[in-house]
């Protein structure tokens, strides 16, 4: 219903002279690129103003952001390395969103996934690297999957709001991680930064040949494409979207909503858990508090900016990976605090949500309530 009006308004308002059939067909898709793009530009403009108030030149800011994110091959590699976990943590929010659930606990699933993967690697010391790596992937995915499935189960069987429970579980996961790396799993040799023992250089997953970008990027791309196919080209995905659109209708046609919620939440969590495994097996080599770097939280923003579409998550994750990759350069060249990336992310998030009002109508003519 809304899509139809969206298309006609778009067709009438934006380019009346163009071929109406084209806009009828693609009007909504154009909107999905145009409006988030405009929101992004608006957010960058506001951030530039903020930086100007801080006494820095916004043009320098934009230049260094571009340069630090996409300016050189080195910065591209940095960007892509950061995009890998972002794709996966964004899927942790985007998959449950198909069911109308707002899960924001990707950070917790990432930490639990990292812990599970590290435990698997430490338990299998001495086995062939491929065995260890496979076990790490499986353990990471199961650990993260169960963590988010817990939120899903609480929502389905106890009526506990999944947004709040998944966020509380982030803090609980962080406490478990700190407890284990400072206690039972601590490597006695790690003095300044309590950590687990290393998983071993042979078991690291390494880089894509010819680059410094680790294989985690490929994991992320495969997961995003698989999620896209699952959501839009399978019966299961269709059922999930029906349940997300109208839960009563889903029950009437006999869909098992509980099973859908549990499966989707498990898959979502296993994506974030995989991100944790990658951070261990490709970057850190061990588990410690460094893993709580905020990828889970940025992933929420990626998912919303991509309008919960698994394929759109890929470019958006690269974009936001680029923003965080440029953070170091902003600190060095402009003397901005490291939190400037967080501020920009927050502003983008606010703009993206506010721009939701623009879909299907140009101007804020009608109020919601």
């Amino acid at each position, binding site marked *: 219903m809304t899509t139809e009006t969206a298309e006609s308004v778009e067709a009438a308002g934006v380019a009346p002279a163009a071929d109406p059939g084209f806009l009828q067909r693609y009007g909504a898709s154009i909107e999905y690129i145009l409006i988030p793009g405009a929101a992004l530009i608006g957010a960058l403009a506001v951030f530039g103003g903020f930086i100007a108030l801080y006494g820095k030149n916004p043009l320098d800011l934009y230049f260094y952001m571009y340069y630090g994110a996409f300016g050189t091959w080195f910065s591209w590699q940095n960007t892509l390395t950061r995009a890998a976990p972002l794709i996966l943590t964004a899927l942790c929010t985007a998959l449950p969103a198909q069911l109308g659930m707002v899960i924001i606990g990707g950070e917790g699933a990432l930490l639990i996934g990292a812990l599970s993967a590290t435990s698997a690697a430490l338990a299998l010391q001495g086995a062939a690297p491929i065995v260890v790596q496979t076990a790490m992937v499986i353990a990471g995915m199961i650990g993260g999957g169960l963590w988010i499935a817990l939120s899903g189960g609480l929502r389905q069987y106890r009526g506990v709001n999944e947004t709040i429970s998944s966020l509380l579980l982030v803090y609980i996961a962080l406490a478990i991680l700190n407890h284990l790396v400072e206690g039972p799993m601590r490597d006695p040799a790690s003095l300044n930064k309590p950590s687990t023992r290393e998983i071993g250089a042979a078991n690291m997953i390494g880089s894509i040949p010819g680059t410094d970008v680790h294989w985690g990027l490929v994991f992320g791309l495969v997961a995003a494409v698989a999620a896209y196919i699952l959501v839009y080209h399978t019966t299961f995905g269709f059922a999930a979207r029906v349940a997300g659109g109208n839960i009563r209708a889903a029950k009437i046609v006999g869909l098992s909503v509980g099973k859908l919620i549990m499966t989707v939440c498990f898959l979502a969590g296993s994506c974030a858990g995989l991100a944790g495994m990658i951070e261990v097996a490709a970057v850190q080599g061990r588990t410690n508090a460094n893993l709580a770097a905020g990828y889970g939280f940025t992933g929420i923003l990626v998912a919303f900016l991509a309008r919960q579409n698994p394929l759109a998550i890929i470019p958006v994750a690269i974009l936001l990976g680029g923003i965080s990759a440029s953070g170091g350069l902003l600190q060095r060249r402009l003397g901005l605090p490291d939190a400037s990336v967080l501020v920009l992310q927050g502003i983008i998030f*606010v703009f993206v949500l506010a721009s939701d009002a623009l879909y299907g109508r140009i101007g804020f003519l009608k109020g919601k309530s």
Partner: protein
Amino acid sequence: MADASLGLWTVPLAVFGGAIRVSTPFLFVSLGECITERSGRINLGLEGTLVMGAMSAYGISYLSGSPWLGVLAAGITGALFGALHAGICSLPRVNDIAVGIALMLLGTGLAFFLGKPLIEPTAARLPAIDFGWWSDIPQLRAALRINVLFLIGVAIAPLLYWAFRTTRWGLLIRTAGESADAARAMGHSVLLIRLRATMVGGFLAGIGGSFLSLFYPGSWNEGLSSGQGITAVALVIFARWDPMLCLWASLAFGGAAALGPALQSVGITSGYHLFNAAPYILTLAIMIITCSPKRTLTGAPAELSITR
């Protein structure tokens, strides 16, 4: 000397003192969120508001030398964040939960950004009233050093309870929360009511933040708040949107949060991080026990998106 005779009694005493000290931010945020949620909207961004409040209170107290000006600045910052939340939510088809998440990230980021130069300096802190003057046990005296903000919070709870029941404003807020249509039919703007309710909620949450930086722990750093804001939002659900229950629940949560440091003080350090997670585990446990998939919660405002 008194130390030795107390022995393990230090733990309940420290938990009691901690309940009073640690509960204050919980109390302010939950009372603020209570007002906002009663008007039919949920503001998950109070976590960010709390951190922003803590930062601005510390900054203003440092610059002006007056901690009370800092408290006021924290409240105003909170109200502005509330206005931002309500403003975006009043646009059509915008989800209030998502806006809350965005403001949570924005508030924390902005506070870290602006608060960078505040990590080093020491600001004037809020005074405490010594209620333990009659005792010569140092632990008891420490537990009874109570901050004025706590007393204000304790006073606000029954005031709100009364205001919700008997005043015109209370009725308007409840009407907006129970049935937006009814409020509109009475000729009131639901958006305006919710804007005010969210601003007042943000004001209180900001003050809760000022307590963190100006009294306990009493300094500004980036690890100051880790989820107190979001715990307080969950606490409102558990307290059934009743300000008096918010007060008792905040005290219970403060006690739970003080458990880790209390055990550490008597030498039990092994599960330190797990004890620190006690408030979150407690919140989750309570939500599991009190929620039910079959019925909406009693006392839940009907317009609230979080109760479906």
